[in-house]
C-alpha cells in the first residue's frame, strides 16, 4: 500500500449528503452540531455567517451547514437551499414568546421550491431546561398539518446533554440515504 493507493481511495466517490441547519437565533443549532462532533458545548457564540462541518457518519460523508439565525442573516438563508437534501429546523422549546416568529420562518421554508424534496427534521431543543414545551405542544403551535408528501419528523433533544441528538441525525441520514442511494448500492 503506497501513496498512490491512497490517492485512489481519496478519489473514490464518497456518498455525500448535504444538510442545512437553520432556525431562529439562540435556538441552539451550533451547540447541537458540536455535540454531534463530540466537542465541548460549554462555550458557543452567535454564528455570524456559516459553520460547516464535514464528518463521516454510518458510511456517508455529511456536510452540515449551520447558518446563523439572527434576523439580518435570515434573508440570506435562501443562498444555501440549492442541493440541500436534508433540512434541520431547530427550535428553542423554551422560547414561547417567539413561537410565532418560529412558525412564520419555518412556513417560509416549506413553500420553497428548491427545498421541496428535502427531508425535514425538526429538533425540539433545550428539553433539559425547565419550561420547555413538549413536542406535541410545539407541533400544534407550528400548525404543521399540511405537509403533503414531505418526509418529516420531530425529535425532542438537548444539545447540551446530547439526548435525542444522535437519534434525530440517524433518522434524517437514513431517510435521505434510502431516497438517494437506493439504486447505487
Amino acid at each position, binding site marked *: *500500500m503506497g501513496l498512490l493507493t491512497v*490517492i485512489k481511495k481519496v478519489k473514490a466517490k464518497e456518498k455525500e449528503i448535504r444538510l442545512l441547519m437553520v432556525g431562529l437565533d439562540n435556538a441552539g443549532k451550533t451547540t447541537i452540531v458540536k455535540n454531534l462532533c463530540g466537542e465541548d458545548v460549554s462555550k458557543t457564540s452567535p454564528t455570524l455567517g*456559516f*459553520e460547516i462541518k464535514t464528518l463521516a457518519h454510518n458510511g456517508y460523508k455529511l456536510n452540515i451547514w449551520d447558518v446563523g439565525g439572527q434576523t439580518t442573516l435570515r434573508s440570506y438563508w435562501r*443562498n444555501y437551499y*440549492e442541493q440541500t437534501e436534508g433540512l434541520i429546523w431547530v427550535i428553542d422549546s423554551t422560547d414561547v414568546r417567539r413561537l410565532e416568529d418560529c412558525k412564520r420562518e419555518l412556513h417560509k421554508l416549506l413553500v420553497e421550491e428548491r427545498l421541496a424534496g428535502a427531508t425535514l427534521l425538526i429538533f425540539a431543543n433545550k428539553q433539559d431546561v425547565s419550561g420547555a414545551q413538549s413536542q406535541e405542544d410545539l407541533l400544534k403551535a407550528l400548525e404543521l398539518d399540511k405537509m403533503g408528501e414531505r418526509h418529516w419528523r420531530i425529535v425532542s433533544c438537548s444539545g447540551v446533554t446530547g439526548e435525542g441528538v444522535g437519534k434525530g441525525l440517524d433518522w434524517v441520514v437514513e431517510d435521505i440515504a434510502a431516497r438517494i442511494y437506493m439504486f447505487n448500492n
Partner: protein
Amino acid sequence: MYTPDEVLKFKKPTEGFCCSLSDNKYGIEFLEFEIRDYDTSKSVFKISKSDAPDLSKLSLEATNGGSSVEDLVRTVRYKLPKEFLKFKTVRTLLKFCVGPGEVPSFRMIERHYYKGELLRNYDFTFGFCIPSSTNTWEAVYDMPVNSQEQVDDMIGSPNEHTSDTFYFVGDKLIMHNKAYFQYV
C-alpha cells in the same frame, strides 16, 4: 488568469504565484487555521491572525532573502510533529471573514505534492458568503496509511511535501497560497 478546470490539471507545483494579492477584491481574510488529530483531539498546528508575523519584519527578510514581500505573506512553512504521519484521521478548522459585499460562489482547490509529484487534491465549494460574515469550515479527513519506510523518507526530506491552494470566486482566481511541510 487560471480557471478551476485548469488548476485541476496541474501536475506539479507552480513556479511562483498565479495571481496577485490585489485580486482579492472581496476582502476575504483568514483568521484562524488549526490541524488536530481526530482520535485524540490533540492540536498539532494552530495559527491565528493575531500571531501572524508583522510586515515590517517580513520586508527585512525579503531584502535579505531576495523574495518579495508579496510572496512571503502567501507562504506558510509548517513544522509538524512526525507522529502526524501516523494519524488515521485529521480534523482541520479554517476560519475566515469576508468584506462588506456578497461573495457569490467561493471555492477552494488544494493540491498536495511530494517530491514534485501530485499526492492528493482537495476541492471544496463554500458557495455563497454573507456580507461581513465570519465563517468556519471544519473538515475531517482519512489520512494515508504510510509504511515506516515512507514515514522515514518524509521526515528526511523537509519541504519536499508542498501544496498550492487556490481560492476562486466564480471562475476567477482571487488568492493563491503555497505551503511547505516538514516533519520533526
